[in-house]
């Protein structure tokens, strides 16, 4: 079954088609909201909200953009808006619990874990910009639209975020060495 056919069926409320779309895109949707939220419990709520929005909006999908892009934008907006409403800032500061990668990891596992940890330690604004730009590939104009800031602000936040991330990774790598864990650079 083609994706466009699946989308049409899902737009009609077909349970199996909706489930199929969920299976296909859930890892990507969850990953972006999880990183933006930096908290597993919040991420669950945000992902649910994102999917509700996606299913509601399915009849309006006209195929102007790729479906994966469209669904991804909805997930990002849902997470950002939910985060703005959230009053659990302190909760997000807690260490991120274990998460399950959607694909098998090889030798990069330590690096990936360290990257996730460093992302979670960034201040909200920096984290959102670096996730949207460096992880998700948004342009500064798109980030500006999503976050309600000027593209120039997005740029300066990105450079600060990269620099801070670099320092955090150095610290995490040093901690790993102290604990006898092999370093993977960065």
């Amino acid at each position, binding site marked *: 079954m083609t994706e466009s056919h699946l989308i049409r069926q899902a737009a009609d409320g077909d*349970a199996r088609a909706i489930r199929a779309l969920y299976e296909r895109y859930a890892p990507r949707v*969850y990953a972006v909201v999880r990183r933006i939220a930096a908290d597993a419990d919040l991420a669950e709520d945000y992902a649910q909200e994102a999917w509700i929005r996606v299913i509601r909006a399915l009849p309006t999908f006209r195929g102007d953009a790729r479906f994966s892009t469209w669904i991804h934008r909805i997930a990002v907006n849902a997470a950002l808006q939910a985060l703005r409403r959230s009053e659990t800032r302190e909760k997000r500061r807690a260490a991120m619990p274990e998460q399950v990668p959607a694909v098998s990891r090889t030798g990069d596992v330590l690096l990936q874990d360290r990257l996730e940890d460093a992302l979670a330690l960034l201040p909200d604004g920096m984290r959102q910009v670096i996730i949207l730009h460096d992880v998700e590939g948004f342009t500064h104009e798109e980030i500006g639209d999503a976050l309600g800031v000027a593209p120039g602000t997005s740029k300066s936040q990105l*450079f600060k975020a990269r620099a801070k991330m670099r320092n955090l990774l150095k610290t995490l790598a040093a901690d790993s060495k102290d604990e006898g864990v092999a370093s993977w650079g960065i």
Partner: protein
Amino acid sequence: MGHLTPEVLARLVDHEPTRDEARHLDECALCAEELDELHRQTDALASLPGLLPPPGDWDVLEARLRSEGLLEDPGLFRRLGLGTTPEWMRTAAALVLFASGTALGAGLVSAGNGLPGDTASGRGVVAGVSTTDDLATAAEEVRVAEQAYMDALTNYRTLLAARDGDEALGDPGTRIAALEYLLAAGQAAVRQAPADPFLNGLLASTLAEREMTLRRASTGNDLWF
């Protein structure tokens, strides 16, 4: 020129350096190495994998979608794989259901009047409508009609097998698999409309047919109608 600041180095990941910055990078191994590390960091971020949502995520979402009326179970035709087939095929499937209902109704009249069909003249099935206004009597009429329908069907396939041989009956394994599929669809339909007499009748017929097919297959005497 002193070392490049971390923010400047972060900018140089995806922007061209100024002439002074380029000259410094050529001369300063420390800054050049730091820029390389930032390139690696950015590449690694772009390669982060997706993350599996926690177990049970779909169940929660499904319940919420249902509560908001955003999720519907597919209808009987779609469950039978007919949701995407041409209209003529769906019509044909509808006719099959209609025909079974007609046969049921015909048997009901025949049994209700106590007048067995005149099979000798080929007019054994006469369409008609039950006129009873008593619920218990109507239910009994349905039961008797169902039995009459099944008997007629069994007789028909026996005659068909006698005329065309076993090759006309199809593969028993395939038939059982098809009946299992129909059974699953029937069970789902009854779950949605538990009090619907037609769906319950269809499910009961399918169950009976599956049992009979299994018995015939196990004795090597499959008779398909």
